[in-house]
């Protein structure tokens, strides 16, 4: 197998020419997302170039502490975007959600790099950053779905919820059906993608591994490992995000405190 072929600046420029096709279609059909699309392309380019530059440094130094710091920065960015995405108050949710993200990312990453890949250095940039990033991205999406489903369904179904309290349910019994629904909603996308993987499209990590020059069977094993890591990471993070935040989100009488939502 060949090693990966680098893309020259001219080669990348040729890639940008492909943008003429969507540009022509958007203009021809007057689809009103021209500005938005242009901005997105610019943002993508700038963000990725910055990340690339930064990662070059991180990879060159390959200092475990720096790698860990990078992961923690990614976790806090994800944390902020979950709390904002769920319209929840940062002061009460940022810390427990960060803890949930940390656990949901760290546990599968450590298993991946340790028992699965047998890397001597568990914080090796080449592994911890891409694998951690993939798991964290999925944790982010799952936490948004899980937390939103949980708190919004209790707020909307307040009548049925308070009925269960009136019937003698303790807090953990009253929230159980909402907790279950939230976990289901958050984990279903991962379950569905595991079920159809390989049939519809070649998954991301497998594609990357093949492009990097690995034999397809190695790529497949990587893909299986990452899917399991994502599934376990998302279930841990959603469970913890709800469990850790629920304690502070209900009053002593078991009623949902509506001040948790940002107006």
């Amino acid at each position: 197998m060949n090693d990966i072929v680098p893309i020259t600046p001219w080669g990348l420029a040729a890639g940008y020419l492909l943008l003429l096709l969507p540009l022509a279609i958007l203009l021809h059909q007057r689809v009103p997302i021209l500005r938005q699309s242009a901005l997105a392309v610019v943002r993508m380019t700038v963000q990725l170039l910055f990340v690339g530059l930064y990662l070059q440094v991180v990879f060159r130094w390959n200092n475990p502490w720096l790698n860990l710091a990078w992961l923690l920065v990614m976790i806090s960015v994800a944390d902020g975007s979950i709390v904002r995405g769920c319209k929840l108050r940062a002061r009460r949710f940022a810390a427990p959600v960060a803890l949930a993200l940390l656990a949901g990312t760290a546990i599968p990453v450590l298993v991946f790099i340790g028992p699965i890949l047998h890397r001597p250095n568990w914080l090796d940039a080449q592994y911890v950053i891409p694998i951690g990033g993939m798991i964290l991205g999925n944790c982010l999406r799952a936490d948004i779905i899980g937390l939103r489903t949980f708190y919004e369904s209790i707020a909307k179904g307040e009548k049925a919820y308070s009925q269960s309290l009136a019937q003698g349910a303790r807090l953990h019994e009253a929230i159980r059906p909402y907790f279950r629904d939230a976990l289901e909603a958050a984990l279903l996308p991962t379950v569905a993608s595991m079920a159809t993987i390989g049939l519809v499209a070649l998954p991301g990590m497998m594609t990357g591994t093949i492009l990097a020059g690995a034999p397809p069977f190695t790529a497949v094993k990587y893909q299986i490992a990452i899917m399991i890591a994502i599934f376990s990471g998302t279930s841990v993070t959603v469970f913890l995000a709800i469990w850790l935040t629920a304690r502070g989100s209900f009053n002593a009488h078991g009623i949902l405190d509506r001040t948790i939502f940002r107006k």
Partner: protein
Amino acid sequence: MSENNPAIDIENLGVAYDGRWVLRGFSLRVARGEKVTLTGPSGVGKSTVLRCVLGLVVPQEGEVRVLGRTVDGRSVWEVRKDLAYVAQEPDLGPGTAREVIERPFSYRANAHLRANIERIGEWFERFRLPPDLLDKDMGTLSGGEKQRVALVSVMLLDRPILLLDEASSALDPANKQTVTDALRSARDLTVLSVSHDVEWRALSNRTIELAPTARTPENEA
């Protein structure tokens, strides 16, 4: 908990939503076995009274005692074991009638009552509900059927105190009669209800009219 404590003792209750008082200076004592109906125009806080007794609304002023225990964040979980509640247009959660009736028995507080589930059929017959309705989804039931399913659910929970919020509003006269007869015959049962029905008031020992001007109805009488 002395036997002489009233079933419900409400003292100087004040509840405000968004800075506006919906109820203020309200006091009421309901003896054990007594059937009391609250009435009055909408928005005077009748439902709020029931919800304060259940600890679903935390009052800004005053206090509620149930069988001698002050309802607060610590006691409310025990207090609710003595109460059963039918909300206005009850929502018992998703599932079939059987599932929603059986659900409360999965809570630890009701574990000792599990044998009562066997009496579903008996109460269905009493409240004139067809047995095949048990396996229908709650979403497909009419308002009157939902109310009677909610009433069956509270009767099976075997609580000493019932809090009923317009629990007969969707019932036809014959069913209303059946339900009030069943409640009247339970002599030890304390019932605090909210209702506009004249037939329903016939069930009660006392009817209390709540007025929008937040006075204390008992002092008025």
